[in-house]
């Protein structure tokens, strides 16, 4: 096997803080290298350096043994390096085809050959078994569809080195399988792939070697076959972690939330269910099943066309999320960048956003109390920040997600709606979040959890609702909650 990439002693600091302390990395032809580590370990930063998006403070990059300087993404692309970015980067007003061919449009004398582009796009989408018309605008896609398009885009670049930074964080099992199929093909063609993910099962399925980063240092590099899940987790978090799905047996209490015949045309139809105190209700479904729309309607972000919501036996017709917050409902939205966070605001300000008014006196911010609350949340969720007055923008993806969680926990809600709460979160943190969810239900709170990760739903839920095409198809509880059962219900083709 020939080595096609070697990074040597890469050091990188932001605002004077070193986040990579001399990292080495090597990649062979036809190999899948898994890069793992906690949130904020520096995985994305290392890859951005390889893409020329960030410049290293010191260190060297060798491509096929030749020392190379990569001043920008255009250069990296020209060298045959492509990347699926962790943070999705669609151009919302442009079509799928235009996004995929952005920067290298199929053209004749400068005129875009739209048909040809869409034809090629169609082909790539089919490889991923993605059924989106190539002329659809990106803004009309759901987050998972967007992710798939970005994957298609990176694949279509036909590069020698392909970086995938958490490509599966927003897609369902079916799409993951399609993706892995393609990864295997690419590997066999001799392409080197760097694969970053927090879903450890995937790594064992797909990777040849694993490199673990912790706090900007390389902890371990081993062939995947020679390591175990347990060892990998220990390397990542620096301690033993027994299980990520902690058990708890909470008592079911009164019905806190009841939804009857809730409908928004074109999004979901005639959805009815109830939720009890102390319950962990999972909602499963394929992408586009309408789960996000359902919970945002309960949260008052949009209004139903038909049907009723009851909270503690009283009719609840929220006009605005604020009404929901007053009823002690919280929603951790699926897209943290779009709906969860103010990226150009500080960590502290984001965390206290929902409770500022509650803590204020005469409209003045209670700065002291806020600081205490922020310290408490940062501590209890182990959010990795340099300072509370750091902009959220510069946090690693996982830590951003924790900030959203912190913000909602502070409102002390009774009903928590989690829409993909563990997206992009590392194993350690995932376990902490599940621990947290358990402690919440132990306090007789009710939790709804939407997740596209079946094991998560299986591991955590006391009951699972399955949605398909906007309708509630089935309900599973107890021992019936298995991946197979969920998949069987969620798939519309049967």
């Amino acid at each position, binding site marked *: 096997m020939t080595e096609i990439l070697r990074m040597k002693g890469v050091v990188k600091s932001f605002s004077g803080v070193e986040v990579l302390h001399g990292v080495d990395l090597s990649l062979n032809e036809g190999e899948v290298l898994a890069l793992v580590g906690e949130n904020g370990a520096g995985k994305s930063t290392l890859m951005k350096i390889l*893409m020329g*998006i960030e410049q290293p403070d010191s260190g060297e990059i060798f491509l096929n043994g030749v020392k190379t300087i990569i001043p*920008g*993404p*255009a250069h990296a*692309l*020209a060298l045959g390096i492509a*990347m699926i*970015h962790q943070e999705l*980067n*669609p*151009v*919302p*007003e*442009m079509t799928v085809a*235009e*996004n995929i061919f*952005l*920067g*290298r*449009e199929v*053209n004749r004398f*400068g*005129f*875009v050959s*739209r048909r040809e582009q869409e034809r090629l796009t*169609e082909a790539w989408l*089919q490889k991923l078994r993605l*059924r*989106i018309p190539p002329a659809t605008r990106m803004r*009309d896609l759901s987050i998972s569809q967007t992710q798939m398009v970005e994957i298609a885009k990176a694949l279509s670049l036909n590069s020698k080195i392909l970086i995938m930074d958490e490509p599966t964080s927003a897609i369902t099992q079916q799409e993951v399988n399609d993706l892995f199929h393609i990864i295997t093909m690419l590997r066999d063609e001799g392409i080197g792939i760097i694969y970053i993910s927090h879903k450890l099962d995937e790594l064992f399925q797909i990777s040849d070697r694993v490199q673990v980063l912790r706090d900007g240092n390389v902890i371990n590099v081993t062939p995947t076959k020679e390591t175990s899940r347990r060892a990998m987790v220990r390397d990542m978090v620096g301690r033993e972690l027994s299980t990520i799905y902690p058990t708890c047996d909470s008592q079911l209490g009164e019905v806190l939330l009841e939804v009857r015949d809730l409908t928004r*045309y*074109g*999004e*979901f*139809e005639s959805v009815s269910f109830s939720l009890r105190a102390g319950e962990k209700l999972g909602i499963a479904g394929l992408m*586009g099943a*309408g789960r996000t729309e359902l919970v945002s309607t309960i949260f008052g972000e949009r209004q139903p066309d038909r049907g009723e919501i009851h909270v503690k036996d009283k009719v609840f017709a929220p006009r605005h999320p604020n009404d929901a917050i007053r009823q002690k409902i919280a929603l951790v939205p699926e897209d943290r960048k779009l709906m969860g966070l103010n990226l150009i605001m500080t960590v502290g300000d984001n965390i206290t956003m929902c409770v500022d008014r509650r803590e204020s006196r005469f409209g003045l911010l209670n700065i002291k109390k806020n600081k205490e609350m922020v310290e408490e949340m940062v501590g209890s969720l182990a959010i990795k920040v340099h300072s509370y007055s750091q902009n959220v923008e510069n946090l690693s993806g996982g830590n951003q997600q924790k900030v959203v969680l912190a913000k909602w926990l502070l409102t002390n809600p009774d009903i928590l709606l989690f829409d993909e709460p563990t997206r992009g979160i590392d194993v350690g943190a995932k376990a902490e979040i599940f621990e947290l969810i358990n402690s919440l239900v132990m306090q007789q709170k009710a939790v709804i959890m939407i997740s596209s990760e079946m094991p998560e739903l299986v591991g955590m839920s006391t009951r699972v609702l399955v949605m398909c*095409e*906007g309708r509630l198809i089935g309900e599973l509880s107890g021992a019936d909650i298995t991946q197979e059962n969920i998949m069987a219900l969620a798939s*519309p*083709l049967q």
Partner: protein
Amino acid sequence: MQIDKRAEGFPYRMHLMSLRSAEFWKKTGIFWALVILVIIMALSQPAFLTQQNLINILKQASITGILAVGMTLVLLSGGIDLSVGSVLAVACMAAAFMTTADRGYPVIVAFIAGLSVGALFGIINGVGIAYIGFAPFIMTLATLSAARGLALVSTNNKPIFNLTREFVAVSNSQFLGLPSLIYYFAATALIAYILTRFTVFGKWIYAVGGNENAAKFSGINVKRVKVIIYGIAGALSGLTGVLMASRITSGNPTVGEAYELDAIAACVIGGISMSGGSGSIIGTVLGVLILGVISNGFDILGISSNYQRIMKGIVILLAVYIDIRARSAKKTI
């Protein structure tokens, strides 16, 4: 072609349908606003609908129109260009300087002078914004001030009179019964339409405005794209300067004051987003026509200019309101 089987299902199909009709409404909302406006004007004052007057409207809208086309490119890329009016004035002086009867250079020299002066300012704007990192607002505000100063300094405030007949004919002649200005506008709009709709560079404009990071990560030289966009906008301001000099038969350093507001207004009325990445040249042209109809119609109705200001504000809002309603129509279907 494979089509998603689920697409046959009820909610999805409805969704597609509503989307399609929504696109239709979205694109034509402002068109209907224009139609309604024209009908009202025609009913209030029969002279409005005469061929001569309609030609007048087009002619008078041409200069703002060309500026608005340049502005569209800039807005699409997520920027703004406040300097267009001042750059117009500099180009106006330059063109007039070249074509005074005693100097008497041919008309083409005036065009070259005006366009290059304009492009130069545009490129300065672009470099300041893309390479040095000035906010577009502040960079072009500085150019607005400096270019106006330059226009005034060039002749110490005095207009340049006595231009050659040939040059005066540029804006004041007719071709196939239509004033030449209309052709300049039409050609500019058409080229810009093709540029934005069908060319690679056009896609890059939308990409830079829609998501600068995505553009950068896709290997687009965002900085160079910006410089070119501002350069084009500058050159178009230069073009209007040349046409203006011919139209007012003199080089006047005070022309074009506050034209940037009209140009931006035309774009925004036409649905160009101020935050970049969405809108089309067709919208801009409709916006230009709406502004043109308003100002011509009110003049013809003999409404005093104070009341015109009040009405202009209200009519612009009404037009945009019709557009907003049309756009949100998809939500209520």
